[in-house]
């Protein structure tokens, strides 16, 4: 293609995009920064989600649970522990919960997992509330820091970069190799000596830890942490939708879903404040019926069509992707 290898170009492009994104607060500190924080938040959440759900095809609806745990970790510790340490602890707590959930359900088929995770956020919310009601004095927690929107934004970008890096490393590791085999055929994977359960649980923990850290980073933005907001189940749904819209088979897939979707959501809620649900539902159906393979699917088909003129033999790849 050119003098640079594909990988070099991609690394360069990624670094340039990151630098460009990081410079945004210099241009605007108002509405567009707020929108960018939301985009960055969902970008990290969706990519972290796809780390696990992409290769395994297990649809996890546990995002809100990890997110809430992260926010709560910060809410509980903000007065005594430095914020940076809290982000790490949030990751750890989420990883532990992910391990427990994974051990209980991941040995079984995907459906059970979906349904279990569907209620996990609700369950965590109830248990957290119950613990707080019975062992502490209040349920709402105040998080007051000096962090401005731009700090939160930069932290999210950094975390996003970390997620990408991990995704890239995992893909090149034994774990990533094992996951690809499991994703293709779990029985085969078991036969070639892969401990499928351990691999899945590990990946789920990594994914959960990142989601928990997003919750922790966003806690100062909420200022007031209470269970219904921290464990809002809509977060889980939106993450799945955006990631699938982009395409969860590629590391960068969720990102191309998040950006248009967040902006669309925003446009709809700005233009039709009384019909948000209706419009979003309709937009959603259109996506499902007309862009079934996600935006990645569309892009690959386009690339294929362009490439087709030069090398007709490459067309077999579409099905494999």
């Amino acid at each position, binding site marked *: 293609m050119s003098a640079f290898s594909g990988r070099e170009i991609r690394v360069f492009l990624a670094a340039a995009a990151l630098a460009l994104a990081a410079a945004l607060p210099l241009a605007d500190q108002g509405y567009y920064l707020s929108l960018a924080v939301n985009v960055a938040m969902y970008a990290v959440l969706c990519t972290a989600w796809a780390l696990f759900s992409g290769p395994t095809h297990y649809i996890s609806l546990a995002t809100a649970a990890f997110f809430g745990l992260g926010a709560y970790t910060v809410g509980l510790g903000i007065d005594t522990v430095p914020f940076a340490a809290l982000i790490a602890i949030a990751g750890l707590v989420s990883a532990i919960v992910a391990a427990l959930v994974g051990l209980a359900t991941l040995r079984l088929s995907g459906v059970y997992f979906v349904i279990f995770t569907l209620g996990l956020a609700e369950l965590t919310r109830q248990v957290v509330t119950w613990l707080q009601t019975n062992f502490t*004095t*209040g349920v709402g927690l105040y998080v007051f820091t000096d962090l401005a929107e731009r700090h939160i934004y930069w932290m999210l970008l950094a975390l996003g970069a970390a997620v990408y890096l991990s995704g890239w490393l995992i893909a090149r590791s034994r774990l990533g190799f094992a996951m690809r085999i499991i994703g293709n055929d779990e029985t085969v994977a078991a036969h070639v000596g892969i401990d499928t359960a351990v691999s899945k649980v590990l990946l789920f923990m990594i994914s959960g830890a990142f989601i928990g850290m997003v919750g922790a980073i966003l806690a100062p933005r909420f200022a007031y942490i209470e269970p219904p907001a921290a464990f809002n189940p809509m977060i889980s749904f939106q993450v799945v939708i955006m990631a699938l819209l982009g395409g969860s088979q590629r590391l960068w897939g969720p990102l191309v879903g998040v950006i248009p979707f967040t902006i669309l959501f925003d446009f709809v809620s700005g233009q039709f404040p009384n019909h948000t649900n209706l419009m979003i539902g309709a937009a959603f159906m259109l996506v499902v019926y007309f862009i079934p393979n996600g935006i990645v699917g569309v892009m690959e088909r386009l690339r294929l069509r362009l490439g087709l003129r030069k090398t007709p033999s490459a067309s077999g790849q579409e099905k494999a992707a």
Partner: protein
Amino acid sequence: MKRRTVLKLTASALLAAGIFAGPAFAEGDVLKFGASAPKTGPLAGGSAVTHWPAIKLWVHDVNAAGGIKVGDKMMKVEVIEYDDRTSGEEAVKNIQRLINVDKVDFLIAPYGTGLNLATAPLIAKHGYPHIAVTAVTDKADEFVSRWPNSFWTLGTSTAFASSVADVLKTLRDKGVIGNKVAVVNVADAFGIELANAGKPALKEAGFEIVYDTSYPLGTQDLAPVISEAKKAAPDAFVGFSYPPDTFALTDQAKLADLKVGAFYVGVATAFPAYIGKFGGAAEGVLGAGGMNPDTPVMQAYLKRHKEVTGMDPDYWANPVTYASLEILKQAIERAGTIDRAKVIEQLKNGSFDTVVGTMTFDGNINRKFWTVGQWQNGVFQGVSSTGVGGEKEPVAKKGWN
């Protein structure tokens, strides 16, 4: 009667939907107000009664009277509304959009404690006056020192809880109830704060708490709670509850024929839907909030609310929401400018005539507010307040029929 309610509800929903198609007033003579609050999500049920209709009525009233007098010019009012879907991120983004993109002149506070606090730093940064209504909190003083542009109107959880103890004490002194109280609460920020303040207040007043439990937000199967409470044979029942469970607790108490001389449930007792559902059985039920519905101003307000929005307001935070907007209007008129810092100055030092009576801010906090109300002859009368005046005497709950 009931048929008409449904028709009106449907009509008002359609009307509300149609409003946004209408053209705005001419640029320049219009004051733009921004409102972001839940239209969907868990808090939408409450804001549909308390928040949005009060705003709608206020806009109607102000424009019908010619607008707001800024200096020597009358300016009409226009409200830009956004749905925050009961989520903090959405609320922050909406406020950003209202300030930076729509460039509104003033903001109407969001709905609920959490959303008010999530947006407070942002509103403070841009120097907009922030008159919070639906945020019952004990930390208002701390918030004011943090955000000097913020004003808190509805009251503190401690006052709400200790007033319950006061009302029960009055009833005990009258010989209506004995010493045994059952206390339950919804395990949610509001319920827990109230229960934590209320239980010590009850003990201090010499009451014995014979049953004490909490249940999760959204629980509607409260038969076990009521039947356990009933076994403890209390003289009074206190439930620091939220909308769906307020209804469910009352329903169960009525079914189980819980014989108590005082029955208190929390938020939503003051909603028109409450009397709509329970009718005569609501008679004597105590609840959070209250107002003095007998003043001519309030009588007129209730009538106008029904005419303009097609529905009844609740007997607590809805008029206070309207009052907060009246206060904002008066502060703007007194400042004679839309310079927001000057308006905040006026808010800090003035006293304002509103539908709920005269309101003044002491350290940015309204210290006189209603705390407990009671359904008496089909009207939710305030029976306890922190000095508003016009309180009625609490009466005994006499059976459920």
